[in-house]
């Protein structure tokens, strides 16, 4: 079967009708289908984990475990149905793959955050510096836009978990509000309002911190 889906990792909102055949092939263990799925989603999953954890290695681990979980469940679901339709636990029906994938990602990130918060280690400033635009103290950090991004990353630390989640699902996961609603189970109106509130709060934090850069927030105070 020829698959014509774009491999551009930045392609958001893949049409579920296009995704269906790929999911079906992936559930049958087709490697090329899995390569396509990884091309489409691995960067988005990684970005969500990285944004929250500020740790590249942990983000890699989460990305890996998410896709292994997805593969396991898809294979199991195919084995449990006689007609090959994917309908068992986890991924219920075709067209809902993205919400399912990002729900797994979100849960993994949450679990890891909870584990880390129990230890309540203060985040080292150099750790923030590592994430901030992969920055070394060079010309990039002098860039005005990069400074804004660094400040924005710090401001996100001050958002509540639910506000931050919707920002990350929306921008890092590149999901539509409809998909976010399917992922979280919240009404779209609630999500729009929450997103609006989160943006407002971020702007407020950035405006208040413009004269001086905020100090890195201590982990565990989220």
């Amino acid at each position, binding site marked *: 079967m020829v698959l014509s889906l774009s491999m551009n990792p930045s392609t958001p*909102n893949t049409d579920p009708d296009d995704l269906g055949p790929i999911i079906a092939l992936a559930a049958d263990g087709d490697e090329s289908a899995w390569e396509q799925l*990884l091309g489409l989603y*691995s960067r988005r999953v990684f970005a969500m984990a*990285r944004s929250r954890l500020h740790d590249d290695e942990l983000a890699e681990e989460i990305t890996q475990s998410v896709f292994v979980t997805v593969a396991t469940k898809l294979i199991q679901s195919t084995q449990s149905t006689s007609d090959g339709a994917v309908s068992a636990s986890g991924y219920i029906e075709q067209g809902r793959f993205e919400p399912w994938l990002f729900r797994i990602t979100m849960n993994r990130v949450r679990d890891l955050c909870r584990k880390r918060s129990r230890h309540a280690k203060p985040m080292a400033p150099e750790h923030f510096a590592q994430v901030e635009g992969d920055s070394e103290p060079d010309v990039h950090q002098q860039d005005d836009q990069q400074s804004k991004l660094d400040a*924005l990353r710090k401001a996100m630390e001050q958002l509540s978990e639910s506000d931050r989640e919707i920002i990350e699902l929306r921008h890092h996961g590149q999901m539509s509000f409809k998909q976010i609603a399917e992922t979280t189970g919240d009404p779209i109106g609630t999500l*729009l309002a929450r997103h609006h509130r989160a943006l*407002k709060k971020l702007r407020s934090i950035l405006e208040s911190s413009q004269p001086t850069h905020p100090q890195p927030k201590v982990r565990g105070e989220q």
Partner: protein
Amino acid sequence: MINDSQEHNNFRINHDPEHAEMESLLDLLAQQDRDAMPTTLESRVMDEVSKVIAPTPIAFTPIDITRGESQPWSMRIAAAAVLAIGTTLVIVSAQPWATSPASSPEHEITVASLSSHLDEYFSLESVDDGQITEAITDWEIWAQSIDTDLYTDNFDYTDILSDDGEL
């Protein structure tokens, strides 16, 4: 705005220009995080996924002919002993002299016949009017002779009544 401006035309609350600037900054930040993914990660994840989706090969271990030589001698001796004992038991149980004569069908018939005669004797004794005492004595003598002959090989068990078994 990333994507669903058309999808959510009814929801214009995020189209505030100030929020649009914030959203574009967030998009840049997210792009930075996506680009930070190591180029090798995708292939590493694929390797892990391949382990899940690939059918588990059936473990096949070729038979090692030389492995038999390494078996301990004690196992071989024990197996030989069990085989020898089993064979001996089968041969012994198949011999005709292994069967007890007391359990032969002919003996069982004879004993049943004698038992019926004894029952007759006791019934006669219960109605004894003194005239059959002599006959009983004769019967007892006959019965003793039968008892003696019962364990001899030459006795014809099937002809016990026709010979001199009558009362």
